[in-house]
């Protein structure tokens, strides 16, 4: 885990909103290249605030964020936003262009990619999420599950170092949920997944972090964390009724 330049390194990150409410109280975490990590935590734990720091939408009050060795600063924002692919919870917020093609092209085009190279990136990203056929459709004509996957494609087209997903499984029906899981598993990229959906975390992520009260309260194998009822209860996390973490993987 302590490779030369991990995908993400956050140290002593503290942040207070302009109105004085402090949300982060010194977050420390490191995510190695190629890891898939779940960030768990109750509502109001500061998950979204932390995510906003990862690509510099919010600026740290104290501490630092580094993406593949590059610190998040005003002058590095452009490169940081290429390296960190943020997938928002509501795909309607993320898909703002008139067609899927333009939407997936938006990110790389902002990086200066043009012409055939741009077209290639768009096709490649849509292949990765298994939706090469929707390229000319308007986003609002897609199903919710398709929109979520296209949202993933929009950031994959930027060839990010790390993919950050905010509640990726919310509002998905079981089939869409499985399809998205297959897509995420197939990707060769570091993933940080913010979620309440503990079974989904177990299914996709070897390692989990619990963010609670603005600090990392637990960090370890997902199986161990989900197998500790006391720990979960202390941070308002609950497994679905009847769900038991098996000793052996599925």
């Amino acid at each position, binding site marked *: 885990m302590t490779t030369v330049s991990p995908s993400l390194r956050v140290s002593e990150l503290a942040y207070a909103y302009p109105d004085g409410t402090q949300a982060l109280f010194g977050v420390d975490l490191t995510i190695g290249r190629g890891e898939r990590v779940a960030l768990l935590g109750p509502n109001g734990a500061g998950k979204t605030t932390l995510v*906003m720091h990862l*690509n510099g*939408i919010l600026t740290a009050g104290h501490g630092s964020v580094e993406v593949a060795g590059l610190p998040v600063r005003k002058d590095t924002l*452009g490169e940081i*936003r*290429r390296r*960190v*692919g*943020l997938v*928002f919870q*509501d795909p*309607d*917020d*993320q898909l*703002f*262009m*008139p*067609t899927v093609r*333009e939407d997936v*092209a*938006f*990110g790389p*085009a*902002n*990086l200066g990619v*043009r012409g055939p190279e*741009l077209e290639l990136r768009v096709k490649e990203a849509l292949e990765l999420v298994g939706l090469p056929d929707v390229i000319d459709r*308007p*986003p*609002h004509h897609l199903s919710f599950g398709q929109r979520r996957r296209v949202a993933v494609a*929009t*950031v994959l087209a*930027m060839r990010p170092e790390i993919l950050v997903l905010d509640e990726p499984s919310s509002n998905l029906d079981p089939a869409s949920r499985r399809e998205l899981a297959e897509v995420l598993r197939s990707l060769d990229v570091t993933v940080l997944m913010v979620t309440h959906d503990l079974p989904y975390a177990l299914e996709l992520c070897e390692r989990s972090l619990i963010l609670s009260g603005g600090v990392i309260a637990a960090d370890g194998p997902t199986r161990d964390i989900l197998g500790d009822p006391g720990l979960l209860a202390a941070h308002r996390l609950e497994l679905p009724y009847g769900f038991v973490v098996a000793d052996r993987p599925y």
Partner: protein
Amino acid sequence: MGAGHRHQLYRPGNTVVHRLPPQCKLPAVAAFAVVVVATPREVFWAFGVYALLLAAVASVARVPASFMLRRMVIEVPFVVFAVALPVIGLGERVEVLGLSLSAQGLWAAWNILAKATLGVMASILLAATTEPRMMLLGAQRLRLPSLLVQIAMFMLRYMDVILDEMRRMRVARESRGFAARDVRHLPVLAKSAGALFIRSYERGERVHLAMLSRGYNGSMPIMNDATASARSWATAALLPAAALATAVLSWSVS
């Protein structure tokens, strides 16, 4: 102009009219409308020619008359107004079928009806043969202020999302037995409007964040800037040119 009508505005097709680059079609339709408005109302035949021109475009674009007529309902309020003009107009009166009507009013009614109808027909044809996003692309290629084009783009993208939210709020109101019947219910409607604004605004903020996250720096990347061939321009110019010739003829006649 209801939400439900939205997807019926455009009729997919692969005709010459559909294929014309949008940056040629937009000015052609606008020029046609200007020529129509500038035609003296006394020259009846000129308006007949205009109608025939539009009918020709419609048949080339395979837009059926029934489609046109349905969409022209939008004009009804002004038909009502135009019909009233001969009755309430001033000046010399003429007897028509036992009614005393204002001659000037009759002329005005004819003028408004003819020109408004032709204008509406031209707009309907434009919308029927041009996808909304192509229309935006046309505006962009015509070098209209990019901020304005972008606002329109975001508006069109989120119009359905917001109308949907509004519909859900109405369903929620009605399922709790609320129906807006008189003034006392206004505060409830206004609260819905307020809530809708907050949702729209917050969504705007989230969209902005999503844009920033993908490297937006204040200007939209231009991705498909294609120029139209001289041939396309010439084809598109057929409609306004024919109309202009008619108008010139009508000016010299009147």
